[in-house]
């Protein structure tokens, strides 16, 4: 059973005094457990909208979307929120770390919405994963005192702390220089492998997209499979 399956997914939004705007148009996509997938596309091509749908933040206008074999449309709002918390980790371009909280507190935050052992042992779990991403010595540092690369590593730790089955990375290297970006992607790939999570990366950087097992291009709301890394670069 695939982790994600989209079939004929469309997304339209109503525009005042105009025809509805189609953002996604018949998107078909399958992501297997533990797979690396990338989606490239120009600005405005619908990448973020697709990511929001995959991350259960938004609902398609039509089409089929199954998460681990279950149709998402049947999930009620609270159940969808809980599934998102348990199964999806987000990594944002601008890191979106919570200000005023240390790196450790940022990583602990998703565990506030967990239950059982993860909830009560959140500090130890967060410390362990921060150590894993090489920030064991910076746990008590505020985000604004961390470099861009370090902030994104905190964000990676935070996305993985609940051991999700899917990591959605939205331009994860967009705010980093090339060298740091490559390093961060290497780390992301490594920890995602350790946790057995599938990784879907949305990027406009062909080099980053080429690192994935399955590569796609989103153009005008339609998703096209890409072949080799050379195709992506082209």
């Amino acid at each position: 059973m695939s982790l994600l399956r989209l079939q004929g997914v469309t997304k339209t939004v109503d525009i005042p005094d105009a025809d509805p705007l189609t953002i996604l148009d018949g998107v078909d996509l399958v992501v297997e457990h533990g797979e690396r997938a990338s989606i490239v596309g120009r600005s405005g091509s619908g990448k973020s909208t697709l990511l929001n749908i995959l991350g259960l933040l938004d609902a398609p206008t039509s089409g089929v979307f199954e998460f681990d074999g279950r149709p998402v449309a049947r999930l009620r709002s609270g159940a969808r929120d809980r599934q998102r918390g348990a199964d999806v980790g987000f990594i944002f371009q601008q890191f979106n770390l919570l200000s005023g909280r240390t790196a450790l507190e940022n990583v602990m935050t998703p565990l506030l919405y967990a239950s059982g052992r993860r909830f009560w042992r959140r500090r130890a779990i967060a410390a362990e994963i921060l150590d894993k991403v090489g920030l064991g010595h910076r746990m008590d540092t505020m985000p604004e005192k961390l470099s861009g690369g370090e902030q994104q590593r905190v964000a990676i730790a935070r996305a993985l702390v609940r051991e999700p089955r899917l990591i959605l990375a939205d331009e994860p290297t967009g705010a980093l220089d090339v060298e740091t970006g490559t390093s961060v992607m290497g780390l992301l790939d490594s920890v995602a492998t350790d946790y057995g999570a599938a990784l879907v990366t949305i990027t406009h950087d062909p080099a980053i997209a080429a690192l994935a097992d399955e590569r796609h291009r989103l153009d005008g709301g339609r998703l096209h499979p890409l072949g080799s890394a050379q195709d992506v670069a082209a």
Partner: protein
Amino acid sequence: MRAVESVWGAIVEAWQEVRIHRVRVLLSLIGVAVAVCALSSVVGLANIAQQGMTESNERYGGRPALLSVTASYAPDGTPMPAGGLPEAWAGVVERHKIEYTSSVRQGGMRVQFRGGVAEVSTTAVDQPYAAMHRIRVAHGSWFTKEDADRLAPAIVVNGDFWRKLGSPSLASHPTARVTSGDGEVTAVVVGVLRTSGYDDMAPTAFVLSSAAPQLMSIDYSGGAPANLEAWVPPKLAEPLTATIRAELDQALGAGATSVNRQDYLAAGDDPLAFFKLVVGGIAVLVLLLGALGLVNIALVTVRHRIREIGVRRSFGATAGRVFFAVMMESVVATVVAGAAGVGLSILIVKSPWLEQLIGQGMVSDFPPFPVEAAVIGMVAATAVGALAGLLPALVAVRVKVIDAIRY
């Protein structure tokens, strides 16, 4: 277990927010803390003022429930036989096992002061009268049972009387010369009353009923027998009044006596109700103003936190959880502010200077800081927190996650 984790998680989130934004929170909560302090203090100070008013009422009308028996004239218009009422009353007291009773007769005595003889308004009472009317003495003591056996009768005087004697130490057993008929009686001052300024403008005195014939040469009652008072449990006041009336009617003739309750609660209504209402109204107004300030700041703050709320939603926070967490932030903060306000209020209300100012020296039994003031303060703080958190929580729930993350 899941519910416990959710509630605890929301409290942790709320506490983090309060801790991180402590300066803003502190500033916004000063108003609430001051309002809670004002509310609790008003309740606490009103309690002292109420105690003062109660004690004052009790001094004049007696402590609840005080029954007064007067029997001036028989039904045919002739004065009652002098011995009739006391004997009938003694029977009533014995039958109903009434512990506190006193006869009360208003009159006067002529006292030789340094500046000459003066007429002193005097009340002849029995020893239990002090307990029945919450009489307090500033120096010396009230009458004891042994005072009835004194050769030189004992008197308890007010401050003006005492000063006219030259404010002597009561340890020296000061005496007052009382002119009575052709002779002179020496009375021993055993106590000086604690009185307000109004009661201290002219000399007054209490004497024991047994010593009244010796000392009181002036009769204000026109020969009527002394009034009789009984302090009984308030719950029994009504049936006992009817029973005593019937018994006295039977002994002395129908309508020969008048039995009435005379303490300040006799009318049944709380005479301090209006005072409490006004004070409570002011306190609630103060609290509402504090709450308005808090709502204002909370609404502005939540708009600055839209991105953070979106990020939390991406972690799996449900709408209900976000609502509860934002609400809890407000409640946690106001509860802390409420505790500070109540603490400050205790310091204010229990300060000796303020107790003296409110009590005006007339409160004998200062009440402890009222528990209801603390409870009202804390409940009000929590309610204000919930109320002030409601609007921002609704705003937070309506945040669109996708827009919020990109905010």
